[in-house]
């Protein structure tokens, strides 16, 4: 229930819009009631053989309500859709605002596209929370009040009975159905998730399944989950049907009740048959408002589940907080790491286990070591995606935690393997690094990164996740961004990993040129041209095991020398 109210709370800025839409919805049902009542009034009056003039107000009513109903319905649909889209914008921004401080540390486990996609789908489905969950009860309540007003002015007894029937249709049956169907929507969603995993396994692993002779078994598992899901849906559909039938029965009961209550009044002459007929028609029409309540309980359950998933993500405590009084970023100075320790949550092994090194201003330092040695963790700590669990990282002698994270990142240009290329134009992808950069600047950066082919394609779409670009081009876009960012510090995290040998040489040359005079920390497994570094730090299992220049390390004939030889031997 808490989740439900938190979700509803998010729609509060649109309360007036929602109220307006609900009111127009009410007016629509109201016109339906008016149309039938005036029709009934008209023919009953007609039946009394009154002159045509006496029927005029009835004819006018029929015309008015008839036309109004169509236009009101049109207006209601426009308003409610408009509101829905406004809510969607708000939900997106709200989620983005909540998620942004958590990235990337707290969303590491959501990196897989499927999980984030599910979140986006959840947000998309919550846009309907207004039209499915909030609006129908409000409209139904207004209609109930209207009918109460009309009927109770004539007979309280009749009104109480009608109200009772309406409560059965509008409150009791939906709640009973919700109670009986509780957990069904959740279990169906669970089955769908399980099916998704099985289907992905099947599509991507069909070769393995076939060769291992497990295909039939896997198909049977998939079918068994489908069967379970269908059974749950059958149950849900049955309850939905029963609910519809019950509200229909309630409507008929209301009709019988009115006639029974008002018959004596007609006999005593305190009520005309015209009024009674009109009332019977009106009450029948009012039950239209209860139809959308059907299944709303199951929607609520699905919405709450979606909400829970969202809150679960964003209720995490951010890893990195902006200091209250951030220190100015130093104009000079190098990087120093003192006794850094760090473990990723849920992992028993420390990623960094007491690492110290310095990168003096204007120097190039390489961090090398086998994968899993903790190289990339150093980069992640330096741009404050994570905080070290122990030890300190300084720039110009100041703890990097004392700077505003954005300032820090603006001053460190980082090229990583995981560079994201947005599904936008190449221009937009580059301007990320320097907003407002001119075409001249962009083209210079592209040329320097070896992307001459893209010079005239600034407005081309990079494709979803950069699919219109090759792996090498994507990597070089990252380098072009680094060039544009033009920061005093550079962190190269396997910057040339996806490039072929020749391109790699070109790109390394470019990097060397652009990094002239800058402080560079390069993370690499590729032991090419190591002579160009002032110092090499060798990491193994989270510890610094060797340090020195390439020649020093080769002479020492230790771990580094072994790695170097292994790599150079396999090559022809």
């Amino acid at each position, binding site marked *: 229930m808490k989740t439900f109210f938190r979700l509803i709370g998010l729609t509060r800025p649109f309360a007036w819009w929602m109220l307006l839409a609900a009111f127009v919805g009410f007016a629509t049902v109201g016109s339906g009631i008016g149309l039938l009542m005036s029709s009934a009034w*008209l*023919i009953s009056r007609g039946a009394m053989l009154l002159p045509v003039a006496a029927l005029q107000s009835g004819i006018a009513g029929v015309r008015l309500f008839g036309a109004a109903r169509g236009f009101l319905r049109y207006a209601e649909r426009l308003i409610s859709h408009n509101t829905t889209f406004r809510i969607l*914008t708000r939900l997106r921004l709200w989620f983005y605002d909540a998620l942004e401080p958590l990235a990337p540390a707290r969303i590491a486990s959501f990196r897989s596209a499927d999980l984030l996609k599910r979140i986006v789908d959840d947000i998309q489905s919550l846009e309907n929370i207004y039209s499915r969950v909030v609006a129908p009860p409000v409209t139904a309540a207004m209609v109930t009040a209207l009918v109460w007003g009309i009927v109770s002015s004539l007979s309280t007894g009749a009104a109480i009975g009608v109200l009772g029937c309406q409560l059965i249709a509008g409150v009791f049956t939906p709640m009973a159905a919700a109670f009986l169907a509780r957990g069904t929507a959740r279990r169906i969603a669970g089955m769908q998730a399980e099916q998704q995993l099985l*289907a992905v396994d099947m599509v991507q692993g069909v070769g393995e399944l076939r*060769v291992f002779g497990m295909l039939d078994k896997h198909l049977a598992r998939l079918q068994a989950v489908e069967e379970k899901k269908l059974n749950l849906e059958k149950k849900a559909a049955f309850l939905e049907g029963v609910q519809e039938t019950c509200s229909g029965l309630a409507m008929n009961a209301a009709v019988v009740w009115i006639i029974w209550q008002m018959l004596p009044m007609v006999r005593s002459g305190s009520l005309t048959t015209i009024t009674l007929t009109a009332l019977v*028609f009106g009450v029948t029409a009012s039950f239209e408002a209860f139809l959308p309540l059907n299944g709303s309980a199951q929607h609520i359950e699905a919405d709450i589940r979606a909400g829970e998933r969202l809150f679960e993500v964003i209720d995490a405590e951010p890893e990195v907080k902006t200091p209250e009084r951030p220190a100015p970023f130093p104009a000079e100075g190098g990087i120093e790491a003192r006794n850094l320790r760090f473990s990723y949550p*849920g992992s028993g092994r420390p990623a960094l286990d007491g690492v110290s090194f310095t990168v003096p201003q204007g120097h190039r330092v390489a961090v090398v070591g086998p994968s899993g040695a903790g190289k990339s963790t150093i980069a992640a700590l330096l741009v404050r995606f994570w905080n070290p669990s122990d030890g300190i990282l300084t720039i110009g002698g100041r703890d990097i935690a004392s700077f505003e994270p954005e300032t820090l990142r603006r001053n460190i240009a980082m090229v990583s393997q995981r560079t994201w290329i947005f599904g936008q134009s190449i221009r937009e992808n580059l301007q*990320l690094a320097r907003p407002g950069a001119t075409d001249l600047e962009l083209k210079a950066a592209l040329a320097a990164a070896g992307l001459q082919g893209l010079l005239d394609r600034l407005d081309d779409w990079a494709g979803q996740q950069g699919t219109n670009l090759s792996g090498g081009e994507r990597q070089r876009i990252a380098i072009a961004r680094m060039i544009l960012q033009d920061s005093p510090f550079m962190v190269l995290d396997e910057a040339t990993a996806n490039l072929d040998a020749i391109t790699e040489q070109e790109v390394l040359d470019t990097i060397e040129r652009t990094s002239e005079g800058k402080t560079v920390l390069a993370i690499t*497994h590729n032991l090419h041209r190591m002579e160009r570094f002032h110092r090499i730090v060798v990491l193994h299992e989270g510890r610094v095991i060797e340090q020195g220049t390439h020649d020093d390390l080769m002479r020492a004939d230790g771990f580094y020398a072994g790695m170097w030889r292994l790599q150079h031997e396999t090559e022809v």
Partner: protein
Amino acid sequence: MNIDRNLIRLLKEEKRPFMVSGLAGAFSAGMLIGQAWSLSALLELVFRSSPEWPAILPSISAFALFSTLRLLLNQVGHQASRRGALGIRRVLSARLAGKVAELGPAFTGSEQSGRLVTTMLKGVESVDPYFSQYLPQLLLALVTPVVILAAVFPSDWIAGTILALSAPLIPAFMIVIGKRSRMATEKQWGTMSRMSGYFLDMLQGLTTLKLFAQEKARRDGIRDASENFRRSTMQVLKVAFLSSLALELVGTAGTALSAVSIGLRLASGAMPFRPALFILLLIPDFYLTLRQLGVRFHAGMEGVTASKEMHRILDLTTDGHDAGRSELGEAEAASRPLVIDRLGYTFPGAPHAALDGISCSIMPGKVTALTGPSGAGKSTLMNLMLRFIEPESGSILLGDTPITAYRTDTWYDRIAWVPQHPFLFNASIRENLLLARPRATEADIEEALLQAGLTDLVRSLPEGLDTMIGEQGSRLSGGEAQRLSLARAFLKDAPILLLDEPTSHTDPILEAKLRSAMEKLMRGRTVIMIAHRLESIRKADTILVLEDGRISQSGSHEKLAGAEGFYRRALFSSTEEAA
């Protein structure tokens, strides 16, 4: 109007529920007439004579009876069509999954896997409204208005004519406006999915945004994009909703026209009260049934779209998979050579043959390396041996028996396969290993892990062998996944090994581990490997160089290194990869 032939054909699977649903609908229309008839009788009685309660008891009971029966019949019809729709989904999903399984890796490799999964799951779900809502409503729309007209005409031909004339307007409007609004709606769905794609893109790239300190700036971008989307969509909806407005107006105009005409004739004494009431009670349902068809029509649309995609897959023909019946014994598989005899294969629609009638022999117990430029036909040959595709001409023989003479399962029993990108199932490490030999003991598993050099890794995991390896093996690195695939091959312990060597690994230490595990695995088996590293190729007993679907060179390393050709060029090129 919205009759999808493929979907209609599926009705055969679940005839009965839909017949029940149709019958229930017809009877329910009858009950509607009864309900209106009894209520009008009741009100007329009250109108004429203000009777005592007992006097109206018969007619009010009749009303209660008819209306209750009608609701129950509706419920029965509704339930039946739901049951039918679920039954059809069951059949459809089994068929689709079966078809995908039958088409195999050659097919799944050529499709976008995300889209395929969506078709298999969401696609099947989306045909539900077509069967549970649209078709039943179509039946109702054919029956109910006719029944109502049949009841109205004898009472008052003028009102009957008004109804009969206005009714065709609704489907006509639906078709005319529906076409336009459908286009608009489809366009809107397009922008909708683009918008959520944009949002997803921003979330996935959040880390990159932060690196450039642009996370705040992009927030405005999201807001603007979202608001622009809202405005453009509202423009579309303003037009799209006009269609339902028009339908609604036809309905209310019909109602108003009939009511006024009846009222005037009543007033002039040309018509009695009771038929007037009776007709007035029936009119709303007359239009409602037709209007509902418009609503359900849209609900069913998605299913029709999905049906196209599903039937594209279902209608694909599978290669003539008439597997033989022979058993293949272990000793037989281990001792006979694999003879490739004028083997040819062309991908559907491709201009050139992927394999152009190649012949060669692969010696038992020896290592044969396949090399050549990419696209030369190495993987095609591998897929043919795996029987993922069937040859267009020629055959592969084990000794002198074509491998198609063996039952597929016994053939697969005798081969171990290590693909370049092994697939790890969303299950525990143990389950992923047991796939290779379901009855393996704990000791067998330990041994396989040891051979593949994975013992330390598994020990370091908090739950050891029972650690779940998340979506698509995301908790393991590429090198670890490859070693797990080797461990599977060790467990399977088959005489024939088909191996697609992983491309060079980024980490020299890992690479050395992987290589030593691979060498152990190859010992004493008939190995066909697609080799990428010169070292692996050098150690092979025979090297086959494939170029443009033909074997351009074959022999030992020494022999090939001495001859002109691809092999020598590759050997002297500066890159490590020979393939």
